[in-house]
């Protein structure tokens, strides 16, 4: 048995693999798990707008996207939080110049099990449940009895490189830290799935992940009447825990990236984000 044949076959294969060069422009888009489904929908729809440009979408969390921007391995980084000054400096030191674009708004919905009777909460009550300084460990501490639950609150949170985690911490806890013993899930969908099945649970995620099988808390801040999360209340700023969703480009966008960013900001692009359950940056008419 001779081994010449397989060897030459390998060489031919390798040559074909490396040899084929294509004219297609690829935009690398990576980051926030909150934005990833919108980014995917944009990429999917953009095929019909310009078939010579392909958008490659990856998730991993806002931190992942920002790190890739700092390392210069993406064209557009998605983030559901602002880049920190330290991160901007790191990017500058490596020759990148991140420019921020607000592409939409997200209401952070607080979820409860369907059977939980409390439909309204204040920011202080949330801080009491989630914060390290907070005292609420049982539902009875808040004067609530939840059917099917033995009173202890199951506190559901996110992993610490998530932008959702960072924003919730800032908006609800202020300077306090998260309580020890929270269940940290690796995705908004996991939070929703868990709260749906657990009567004792409370969790949070972007509004877009809400399902009919759980209830969303109406939230009041500073003694004002409570506001329910919706695309509308996130967009007009009346819902107390809504945040901007960002895309970072390296320098002012040019060429294919500019065309893509412009399209995202157009009525067509903004209707897609609105259809995914987030608020567009300005009122748009969609069919």
């Amino acid at each position, binding site marked *: *048995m001779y081994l010449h044949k397989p060897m030459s076959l390998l060489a031919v294969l390798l040559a074909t*693999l490396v040899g084929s060069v294509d004219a297609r422009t690829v935009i690398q888009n990576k980051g926030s798990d909150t934005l990833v489904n919108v980014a995917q929908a944009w*990429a999917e729809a953009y095929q019909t707008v310009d078939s010579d440009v392909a958008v490659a979408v990856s*998730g*991993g969390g806002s931190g992942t996207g920002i790190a890739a921007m700092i390392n210069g391995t993406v064209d557009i980084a998605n983030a559901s939080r602002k880049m920190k000054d330290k991160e901007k400096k790191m990017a500058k030191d490596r020759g990148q110049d991140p420019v921020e674009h607000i592409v939409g708004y997200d209401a952070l919905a607080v979820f409860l099990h369907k059977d939980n009777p409390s439909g309204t909460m204040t920011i202080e009550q949330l801080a009491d449940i989630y914060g390290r300084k907070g005292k609420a460990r049982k539902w009875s501490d808040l004067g609530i009895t939840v059917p099917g639950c033995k009173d202890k609150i199951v506190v559901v949170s996110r992993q610490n490189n998530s932008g959702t985690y960072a924003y919730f911490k800032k908006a609800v806890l202020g300077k306090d830290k998260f309580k020890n013993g929270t269940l940290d899930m690796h995705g908004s969908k996991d939070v929703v799935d868990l709260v749906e099945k657990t009567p004792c649970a409370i969790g949070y995620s972007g509004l877009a992940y809400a399902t009919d099988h759980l209830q969303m808390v109406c939230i009041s801040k500073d003694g004002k009447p409570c506001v329910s999360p919706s695309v509308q209340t996130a967009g007009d700023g009346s819902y107390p825990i809504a945040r901007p969703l960002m895309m970072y480009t390296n320098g002012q966008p040019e060429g294919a990236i500019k065309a893509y960013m412009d399209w995202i900001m157009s009525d067509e692009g903004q209707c897609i984000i609105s259809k995914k359950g987030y608020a567009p940056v300005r009122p748009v008419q969609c069919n």
Partner: protein
Amino acid sequence: MFEISELNKTNMRVERLYRTLFFMMVLLLVLPVLIILGTLIYKGGSVISLEFLFTSPTDGMTAGGILPALIGTVWLVSVALLVSVPLGVAAAIYLNEYAGNNWFTRIINLAIINLAGVPSIVHALFGVGAFVIFFGFGTSILAASLTLAIMTLPVVIVATRESLAAVPMAFREAMWNMGATRWQTIRRVVLPNAISGILTGVILEVSRTTGETAPIMFTGAAFFLPFLPESVFDQTMALSLHLFVVSTQVPGVPEALPYGVALVLVALVLIMNSLSIAFRVYLRGKKKW
């Protein structure tokens, strides 16, 4: 006249006990495999169709097929094999046929064993640092496949070495006595006789590479790509990551879809394994000893 004593009876009972016990252990091993396959077929079988295999995902990945992920996995595995098989087999040939039993060889052996023990996430981070950033391949099939290749190299080396060592020394001595060089011996006698064992290593590598998620997540696999990869410098979707994505990241996915993706992934590994095993059996039939 021979009579069964109490002692004989006890021994026989103990014998039966252990035999049953060990048999139960075997059943216990097979059971999870059957349960997993059964669940996947029961829950995911309904989504499998030619259309599922040969169309792209649509509607925010809640509908449509898995073609880009399927093709992507084939790319990743093939390129990884192209790198690791020649490299691994060559290294194994050197270690088994040429290297003396000295401190240098022992250090290399130790390194290979340690390489096999490195967790896949560490390989992933190494891949990002080395291939994506330092060599500048970017997040691409090339970077991901090289990472996979390094991760699975020990499997190929160890399997190849063992099958080379299984070729009787007398075969080599006979060749040498006829005046053949080492390389002639390796090419005409040792490798042909060891090929079925080498294939076992390749099978193991294929199985492991197909299912790996961590090493490709940061080095080359994308959440979504609107095109099929055309060169090793493209990013790609992959079945394993696609399974992770549709089961944890995308809201509103029909329940059967993730099971369907998992079923395809498992079936792909099983089919590749069976093909290689069939080939091995065929080769073994041609063995002369």
